[in-house]
């Protein structure tokens, strides 16, 4: 009924998989370095150090001192070129609690009125007669009342939605002035001091992920909580997801929660025929989801 039995118990157990979703990866943290310092530089240094026959304890000490220097590193030490972010969403784990949508509004100062969402949750009910009923009352922030009786349901599930931070983002393509753009680390942002408010990007987004800020009169959207990323934290929605349905990490590095997520699941993206190359990857996605 609700999908493969395997997705079931995943939510019950304190496994590493669940943890991985809610933890800022060590990789993210390790990537925070002072500007100018390159991984290659460090590797060369280590090789030279080895050649010079330094003892292991000293070597470890050097690394630790370096890490401390790079340290808790706010954005000063952040090197965007060394990251490339993406998010994984496991539909089979979403319980529709709405914590992500709530946290997003708090973290990003999104108006509380019901029609502005960086992220929201949809409920799909595919009935035995084949009809598909979708809803998202207040973006799922207040939960999902009014469930149907089990007898009419063929399958049903929740789907978290957000900006897909597409590699070939239509919104970035159409912005006439360069007020919306993709950063080096793969995040699509809006420059609210430069946006002229033409709304073309909102029209161009196939996912309905953009909205028009009622007070600032500019386009607005999910930033992957960019201000958190530069501090080595994960986006607020990922932080508060209680079941690990959201996984955050680097697209191209091997040892991150996202890489593991993509290794262990069959991955789909939304509206692949539009060739936007989303960087939000879905596992256990139903074909009815649009």
């Amino acid at each position: 009924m609700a999908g493969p039995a395997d997705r079931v118990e995943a939510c019950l157990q304190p496994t590493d998989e669940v943890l991985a979703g809610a933890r800022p990866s060590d990789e993210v943290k390790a990537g925070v370095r002072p500007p100018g310092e390159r991984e290659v530089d460090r590797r060369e240094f280590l090789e030279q150090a080895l050649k010079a026959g330094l003892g292991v304890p000293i070597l470890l000490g050097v690394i630790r001192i370096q890490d401390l220097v790079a340290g808790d590193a706010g954005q000063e030490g952040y090197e965007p070129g060394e990251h490339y972010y993406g998010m994984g969403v496991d539909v089979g784990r979403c319980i529709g609690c709405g914590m992500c949508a709530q946290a997003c509004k708090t973290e990003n100062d999104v108006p509380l009125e019901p029609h502005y969402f960086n992220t929201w949750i949809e409920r799909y009910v595919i009935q035995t007669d084949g009809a598909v009923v979708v809803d998202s009352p207040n973006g799922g922030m207040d939960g999902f009342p009014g469930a149907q009786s089990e007898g009419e349901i063929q399958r049903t599930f929740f789907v978290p939605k957000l900006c897909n931070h597409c590699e070939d983002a239509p919104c970035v393509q159409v912005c006439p002035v360069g007020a919306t753009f993709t950063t080096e680390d793969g995040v699509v942002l809006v420059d609210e001091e430069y946006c002229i408010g033409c709304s073309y990007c909102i029209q161009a987004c196939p996912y309905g992920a953009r909205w028009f800020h009622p007070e600032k009169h500019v386009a607005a959207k999910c930033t992957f909580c960019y201000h958190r990323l530069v501090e080595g934290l994960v986006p607020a929605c990922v932080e508060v997801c209680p079941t690990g349905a959201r996984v955050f990490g680097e697209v191209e590095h091997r040892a991150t929660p996202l890489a593991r997520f993509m290794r262990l699941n069959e991955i789909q993206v939304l509206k692949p025929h539009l060739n936007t190359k989303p960087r939000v990857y879905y596992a256990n996605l139903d074909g009815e989801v649009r």
Partner: protein
Amino acid sequence: MQGYIYPNEFELHWGLLVVLYPYITGLVAGAFILASLERVFNVKEVQPTYRLALLTALAFLLVAPLPLLAHLGHPLRSYEIFLTPNRKSAMAMFGFVYAWYLTVVLLLEIWFEYRKDLVLWARSERGPKKWLHYALTLGATDLSEEALRFDDNAGRWITIIGIPSAFLLHGYVGFIFGSVKANPWWSSVLMPVVFLFSAIVSGIALVLFIYVAASLFRSKPVDMRCADKLAAFLFYAMIVDFSLEMLDFIHRLYESEESIEILSQLIQGPLFISLIVLQVVLGTLVPLIALGVVSPALSDRGVSRTPAELRRLIYLACATLVQIGIFSIRWNVVLGGQLFSKSLRGLTVYKPLLFGTEGLLMASVLLFLPLVILWLLVKVLPPWLDAEATE
């Protein structure tokens, strides 16, 4: 509202003002292409409307960017489109296409066309009008045969550049919509072509209307050879335009992509009045039949002979219906494309406001404004044959 729409789709972002923009630029491009007919293809019959068509195009072109500016969230930042145009954006070229068309095509052509008259008016007049006309000559007062021939040649070349430019101006507006792959109602390779031909239709209808109405208003005889020719052109342009639209419609229906279900709900629901009734029946079929019967489009004297007075009225009525139809086309494209969810699972509604920058009142002001500007232009640069200065 019915079915499911994405939460952010609750607000419509392009309202009535964005409907006005393609409508007005369409009139500009259409009026200009009509003017070019006379110049490049030497259609003598429509000569009485040549200057009128140019001034009409200018009056509407001056107003065209206003609805866009008014709808922007930050109109004062609009200059950025000139500073840092995003070369990948269809919309970024707007400023340049507009500036090119306004300065290089329209103003230059009008200047070369009117220069001789400006000089002569400036010589014979007194007071501020003299100085105004003199200033407009830019001091180029040489009326030698050689200079006048240069005017004529330059005007001709600009018209030749101008026709593709007019195609560009409006085809480009169509491309802004047609290239949005996220929106199945807009996304169509035919969109720029349909925009272009509907623009020609609306431009011819507008000039026909203004010419006949202004002649009646000025108590001057209507040159029926000219009006007939315009009506025939209108008929031909409408045939092409309607065929293209039907092609688009049949193509969508035959391909039946995943959006077909929601789009057919759209046509049968919120767009029924504006699409089926206004655009197709009243705006296209009725005038098409009327023009086919009374204008010389199908046979030299019309399928059914009608007295000139009646024909004039029929032309006026047809031109009005065509304008309503073309306005409906713009409405159906711009608003229709936002009345269904990109989830393809629901429909939403558009409620036009009366007041405010996006309201009905503002829209009527912006529609009326070009006529005021045209009236002013006609005062300064009379386009009537009888006003042409003689030495």
